[in-house]
C-alpha cells in the first residue's frame, strides 16, 4: 500500500523531461447560471525545452484561460498539466508559490503591474519573494529595464508610463528570476510595430541564448516568424498545430 503510494508519487517526476510543459486533455468549464461555458474543452500538447510556441486564436478562444492553467494560477476542471515533469496539481502551497516565482515568468495581457510601485520596484518584486539580497535585486532590475529599453524610466510608476512601456516593464519582471518558461499573453498587444518587433526579438533572443522556453498567445502574425510551432485554438479546442518550416514551405510554394 505504502509502496504503491510512493510509486504514484514518483511516476510524474520521472516523465520524459524533453518536455517542459505537458498539457493533457485540459478542460476548464465555467458555470454562468444555467449555462456552462467551455473555455477549454480538451486541449493537449507538449512543449519541448527551449522551444518557442505561439498560441493563436480569435478573441474568446481560451488563450488566457490556458495560460492561467499552465502557469499554475488557476486549476483546470479536468485534465493534467506537467511542468518540468511535475504534475502541478500535486504541488503544495509552498511548491506552487516557488514555481510561480522561479520556474515561470508571466507577462499578462493586462500587465498587472502594482500601481504604487515604480518600474524598478515592480521588477524587483519576484526577486524579493525568492529572498534575493536587496542590492542584487536592484542591480538586476536595472539591467532588465535597460534590456527592454526603459533605462530612463526606472523610477516611473505604471500610471506615468504608456501602455507599451508598461508591457515592457511586465516583460522585465517576467525575466526577474531567470525562469525556465516564459508565458506571454499577447505581449505585443499594446505595442506599435517597432516596439512590438523589439519585444518579439528580445523574447527570441532570450529563447535562443538562454534556452528559455517561450509560450506566447497572440494575434500578431509577426510572432509566426520567430515561433518554432504555432498552435491554433478555437472555442477551447486545438484546431491545428503547425511547424514553422511547414508554413514557410507553404509560403514558398505560393
Amino acid at each position, binding site marked *: 500500500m505504502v509502496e504503491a503510494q510512493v510509486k504514484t508519487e514518483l511516476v510524474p517526476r520521472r516523465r520524459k523531461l524533453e518536455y517542459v510543459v505537458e498539457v493533457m486533455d485540459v478542460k476548464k468549464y465555467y458555470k454562468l447560471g444555467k449555462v456552462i461555458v467551455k473555455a477549454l474543452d480538451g486541449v493537449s500538447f507538449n512543449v519541448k525545452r527551449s522551444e518557442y510556441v505561439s498560441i493563436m486564436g480569435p478573441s474568446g478562444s481560451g488563450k488566457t484561460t490556458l495560460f492561467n492553467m499552465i502557469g499554475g494560477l488557476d486549476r483546470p476542471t479536468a485534465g493534467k498539466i506537467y511542468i518540468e515533469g511535475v504534475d502541478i496539481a500535486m504541488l503544495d502551497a*509552498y*511548491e506552487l*508559490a516557488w514555481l510561480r516565482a522561479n520556474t515561470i515568468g508571466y507577462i*499578462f495581457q493586462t500587465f498587472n503591474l*502594482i500601481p504604487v510601485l515604480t518600474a524598478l520596484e515592480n521588477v524587483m518584486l519576484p526577486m524579493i519573494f525568492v529572498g534575493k539580497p536587496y542590492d542584487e535585486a536592484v542591480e538586476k532590475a536595472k539591467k532588465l529595464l535597460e534590456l527592454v529599453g526603459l533605462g530612463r524610466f526606472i523610477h516611473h510608476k505604471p500610471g506615468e508610463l504608456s501602455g507599451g512601456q508598461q508591457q515592457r516593464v511586465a516583460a522585465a519582471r517576467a525575466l526577474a528570476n531567470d525562469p525556465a518558461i516564459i508565458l506571454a499573453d499577447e505581449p505585443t498587444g499594446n505595442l506599435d510595430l517597432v516596439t512590438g518587433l523589439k519585444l518579439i526579438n528580445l523574447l527570441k533572443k532570450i529563447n535562443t541564448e538562454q534556452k528559455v522556453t517561450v509560450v506566447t498567445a497572440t494575434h500578431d502574425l509577426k510572432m509566426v516568424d520567430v515561433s518554432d510551432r504555432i498552435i491554433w485554438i478555437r472555442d477551447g479546442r486545438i484546431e491545428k498545430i503547425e511547424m514553422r518550416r511547414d508554413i514557410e514551405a507553404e509560403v514558398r510554394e505560393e
Partner: protein
Amino acid sequence: MGKSEEKTVLPFGEAIYMVLHSIRLRLGRILVVIIAITASIAYMVSLDLLSRILASSIPPNGVGIYLFLLDLTAFIVAAAGTMNSLLIMIAERYHEIGTMKSFGARDIHIFELLMIEALILTIIGGFLGYLIGLGIGYGLGGSGDPVFLLGKAIGVAVLIGLISASYPSYQAARMSPVEALRVEV
C-alpha cells in the same frame, strides 16, 4: 524544482516598507479610512467624557443602565466605522494581491501585509480619535481619566481593527491569483 526547503519569503522589513509606501502613496484613499476610524473613536471618547453630564438629568435608578447603553452605542459605532473602513481598504487590494501571488507571494505574506496595514491605520485613527474626542469632551465640560481613555481608544481601535480585518484578509489571502485578479471593485 519544488524541493521543500525552497520557499518564497517576504522579509518583515520589506513588508513594513511596502505597507508604509502603500499608505503614503494612497494617502487620499487611506485618509478616508483613517478619518472614519478617527470619527468613530472620537465619538466614543467624547461620549465617555460627557457621560456623567448626560446622565445627570436621568433619574438616579436609571443611571447605571443609561451609562451602559451610552458605552455600548459608542462601542458599536466605533466598531462599525472601523470595520467598514478596513473592508474597503482590503477590497481595493484584490488586484495587487492577485499580482503578488502570481509572482510567488504565499497566503501568509498577503495576510501579513493586510494585517500590518490594518494595525497601522487603526493605531493612527485611534490616536487621532482620542485627541479629537478629548478636545470635544473637555471643551463641553466633561471629565474623565485621559490616560485610561488613551488606552481604551487605541485598544478598541486596534482590537476591533484586527478582529474585523482578519477574516476578510484571510479570505483575500487564500484566493487563487486568477480569482483575485478578476475581482472588480
